[in-house]
């Protein structure tokens, strides 16, 4: 109850909390939130529990909890499903894919933001306008032409060299690097770093690239972390482009793999549930480590272009 003293004036103010009515209001809001939390988590918990049931149990549906809750049974469930799903390969693929996306995004968008913020060559304003408009472009018109260009990159026909990007990660890497919003995020953050850092480094004989990597990046840790988290979590839930592009089973990433497994009827129910859990593990770990940055990071993300 002592915590009430820390309460600031709001819709419910400290003076309200001394009255009965205010207390009831406060605790009913609390109860409502608690209920919402349970309600929100419930589907996820159900999936988690169902992963440990055998399929007969799932269909008979007597209880929410699996019959056998021993650690041993759970371990065999996990190991068996892992073996049937063969997710190992796709997990490694997803890591490769997400790391590539991350590096390319940081370098391409970061250097782009640096040039627009600190070097400002001729035509900066024009490029900035274009980048802004790029952010506004609806995406669906692009899907088919993009696919056509990936079939024979970079141009459709009659080009001295052409490479098919189908069954490579390049389409995914390139399209995550083509992120106008992140260019603007970097630009705005770099704007807040005084020009004198750059000038001092130049006097010491630093080139622009080493200024970017040795000075700007370390000084912009919050934004680097924010962009990294965003592109990593995005990579783990990226579905549409990988689904189109990675047709080779050896290259499949986890989200696509569990979708395709869900369609084959040979896989048992509880194994499918396990698949959903496996696919969520890494994003959850990322969240657990960077929870503060993710929930608090929106004030950075809220910067408007």
């Amino acid at each position, binding site marked *: 109850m002592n915590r009430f003293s820390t309460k600031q004036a709001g819709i419910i103010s400290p003076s309200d909390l001394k009255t009965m009515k205010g207390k009831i209001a406060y605790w009913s809001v609390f109860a409502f939130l608690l209920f919402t939390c349970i309600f929100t988590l419930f589907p996820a918990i159900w999936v988690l529990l169902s992963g440990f049931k055998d399929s007969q149990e799932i269909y008979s549906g007597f209880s929410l909890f699996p019959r056998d809750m021993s650690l041993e049974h759970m371990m065999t469930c996990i190991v068996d499903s892992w073996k049937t799903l063969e997710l190992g390969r796709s997990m490694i693929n997803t890591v490769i894919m997400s790391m590539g996306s991350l590096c390319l995004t940081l370098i391409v968008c970061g*250097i782009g933001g640096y040039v627009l913020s600190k070097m400002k060559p001729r035509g900066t304003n024009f490029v900035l306008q274009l980048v802004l408009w790029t952010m506004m472009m609806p995406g669906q018109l692009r899907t*088919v032409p993009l696919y056509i260009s990936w079939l024979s990159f970079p141009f459709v026909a009659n080009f001295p060299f052409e490479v098919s990007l189908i069954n490579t990660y390049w389409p995914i890497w390139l399209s995550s690097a083509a992120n106008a919003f992140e260019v603007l995020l970097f630009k705005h953050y770099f704007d807040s770093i005084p020009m004198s850092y750059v000038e001092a480094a130049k006097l010491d004989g630093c080139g622009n690239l080493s200024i970017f990597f040795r000075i700007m990046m370390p000084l912009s840790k919050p934004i680097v972390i924010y962009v990294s988290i965003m592109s990593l979590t995005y990579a783990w839930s990226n579905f549409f482009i990988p689904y189109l592009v990675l047709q080779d089973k050896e290259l499949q990433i986890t989200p696509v793999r*569990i979708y395709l497994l869900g369609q084959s009827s040979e896989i048992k129910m509880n194994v499918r549930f396990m698949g959903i859990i496996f696919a969520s593990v890494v994003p959850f770990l990322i969240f657990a480590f960077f929870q503060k940055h993710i929930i608090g990071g929106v004030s950075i993300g809220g910067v408007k272009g």
Partner: protein
Amino acid sequence: MSTQPGIEKQRVKVKHKVARRNNIEGWILMLPMVIVLYLMIWRPTVMGAIWSTFRMKGYTPHEFIGLRNYIEVVKDTQFLPTLWNTVMYVFWSLVVGYLPPVILAIMINEMVHFKNGFKIVLYLPQIVPGVAALLMWYYIYYPDSSGLLNFFLAKFGIDPYIWLNDGRFTILYIVISMTWSGFAGTMVLYYAAVQSISSELYEAAIIDGAGMLKRVRYVTIPQLSGVLLLTFVRQIISVFQVVEQPLVMTGGGPNGASTSLGYQLYKYGFVNGRAGHAMALGVIIFFILITLTVLYMRLNKKVEENY
């Protein structure tokens, strides 16, 4: 004294040289970004518009046919129902999903117990990767007794209901799952806005004798009106592009009841082998969305001017 103009001239020359070097180097460094944006965004957008007027043989443009692709797309008996479905996605997403994020953000901000706990727990659905969440909801809605909802119905002695296969409400059910996976992101956004409302405003309202509901009405809502408006438009734009949900959960069914424009485009482009139609439909969607986006930008400007 006579050398002064010469030095001045030289200085200007050096300055120009430095500026030119900066220009060249700047452009070289910026080139990867420009190339990537060109190849991944600008070029496909323009090419899509051009190729939409071609007859496509597989994925190669064959001959110019003017607007015939457009006519065929619009004349398709499925076009109007699909457009209507897409509008229904937007409608239901506003009915189901528009208010919860604000309400929850305001409520969490009032708490002094478990404030962070609530934030973290309610954020969890956002972390479940898109497809995993969709599959999860697919099993929750599973039409036989193994689905979670039918499990509860069975507890009350009610026969299993077909959920997603009930064409009248398929879109509503899909929207509920979309809301589950998406509300937290918006909630955190609102939370930042709610937090920045100065407590002095509330104190002033209390001195004026405003009760709790009046404080919501006269302080909280007016302070949030800008964000509320922007989220409204943003939600319309993003839900209008729904593809993955019908693709994973229903395959557009039953009987096309959950096919959206985006999913129809995907089917034209990658299932039925009618790339020309896909691009024509893409152009139509593009114009609808660009209109909404321009509206959004206008509102955004107005909102920013007011604060």
